[in-house]
């Protein structure tokens, strides 16, 4: 049976090579750590349906290669993304220093309204830490990003990162700050919402009914 959903959000996972982007995605989708994760070539795709604030949201996630040479390909995925996980490795200062470049890319190429959450991955390797929580938190605040430290290995904060990003987008839709119908918003109405849209603008109660059917 087809799962109906209210919204479809397009997500992007970006950041330097070897920070654990594919492992985060794998942990989110399969609920386990990917032991033998080869580096990503170009872009890989994953998808999962989640419940956020009473709405069913289908996440279409593009996991991008971190290496510079693939930027010409990965950049074409920025346009039309509603949300992004920007990943660095807490044990590698280099991947943290590259964040500004990644952010510039995302803000120029994606929709100006893109919701970005900064993920300091490999939280489990605290002994090798090169980037403190506080400095990353400051960076996030100064750049209007949400922020979490995550571990694709243990699963800590992985689901939270995706959900937090989705919830923020949903709030912005509801407040009218984001218009799903704008071209390249990275948001689509799902079948559940479409039925509802054809009727005159419905109440919250009506939406609930649609979800339970």
């Amino acid at each position, binding site marked *: 049976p087809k799962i109906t959903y209210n919204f479809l959000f397009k997500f992007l996972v970006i950041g330097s*090579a*070897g920070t654990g982007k594919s492992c985060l995605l794998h942990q989110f989708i399969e609920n386990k750590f990917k032991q*033998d*994760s*080869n*580096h990503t*070539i*170009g*872009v*890989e*795709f*994953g*998808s999962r349906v989640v419940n956020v604030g009473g709405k069913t949201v289908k996440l*279409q996630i593009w996991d991008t*290669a971190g*290496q510079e*040479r*693939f930027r*010409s*390909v990965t950049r*074409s995925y920025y346009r039309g993304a509603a949300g992004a996980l920007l990943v660095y490795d807490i044990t590698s200062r*280099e991947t943290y220093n590259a964040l500004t470049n990644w952010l510039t890319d995302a803000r120029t190429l994606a929709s100006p309204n893109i919701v970005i959450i900064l993920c300091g991955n490999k939280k489990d390797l605290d002994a090798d830490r090169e980037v403190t929580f506080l400095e990353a938190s400051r960076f996030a605040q100064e750049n209007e990003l949400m922020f979490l430290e995550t571990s694709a290995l243990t699963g800590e904060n992985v689901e939270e990162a995706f959900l937090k990003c989705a919830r923020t987008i949903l709030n912005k839709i509801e407040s009218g700050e984001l218009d799903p119908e704008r071209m390249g918003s990275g948001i689509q109405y799902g079948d559940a919402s479409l039925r509802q849209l054809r009727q005159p603008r419905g109440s919250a109660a009506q939406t609930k009914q649609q979800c339970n059917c």
Partner: protein
Amino acid sequence: MRTAVCSVEHHDGGRLPEKHEPHFISRLRVAHPLIINAHAFAVLFIVSGVFSKCPAFSTEELRKLSWSGIPRQVRPITWKLLSGYLPANAERRESTLQRKRQEYFGFIEQYYDSRNDEHHQDTYRQIHIDIPRMSPESLVLQPGVTEIFERILFIWAIRHPASGYVQGINDLVTPFFVVYVFEYIEEEVENFDVSSLREEALRNIEADSFWCMSKLLDGIQDNYTFAQPGIQRKVKALEELVSRIDETVHRHMQQFEVEYLQFAFRWMNNLLMRELPLRCTIRLWDTYQAEPEGFSHFHLYVCAAFLVHWRKEVLEEKDFQGLMILLQNLPTMHWGNEEVSVLLAEAYRLKFAFADAPNHYKR
């Protein structure tokens, strides 16, 4: 087979006038590359001692024989000949090998210490983090092998600054390395312990792998230079080709807004190595090296045949997600020579139908 041996001897004795019998093997009725029997090929090579007795055999004949698969026993030397690493003239082979191996280790002496220099450290760092996450079938996770791959890739990268090291190139070392390792052992064993080889053998394998990989990359440089134009062009060509040979599949992809670049980028960047088991890649490369422009051009037809091979599964998927997930994880785990042969035969047919008439695959 006797005839084959005789004809080689005749040729060696110079009794056949060159202009009437320029290719001694044509006597074996090597009419079509698909008909040759691999066993016959092995016997021919080993029994007739082609490599020692016939100093300048025809590379063309070797290509024809190799097209449908090279027997394991003669694969290392055949690959080295086909790639142009070894000269056809047998008398020059040993000295060429020596010179090339020395030259490679000269590069190491000259450049390898610079891996931590400021302008090379990014390259080295990237290689260094990529090697441990390669597939275990590349043997790269064994002690000592990691360093070999690092040296090969680093030297190649800094000598080719317009592309540098691009992820995916590391995979291209594997088939050479694995094939050349088996030159030094009798039996093919799963997870052979590479460190049991003598140091000299390992050095030879390293240098030979470096040079053969370099030859391969020479033919597909635009896959890895800025913006990867070779890949972009080939993915476009793939789309046009598929739209001509299987309109149903093509329309199905269009209907669900699947773009060819989304799945075929990797097919081109890694020469299908991420989609097939290593044994299949090695078999595929027998043909790629036998085929003129195998890696750069014939590969396109193989990709088209590969996609159409999954038409039933593709048509069963009725949404974007399903299609993308399928196309990224095509179930080839059990594939062997037979599946690859069918794929290659189909690709050959496509090439024959479309190669000389590029406008045929333009709509």
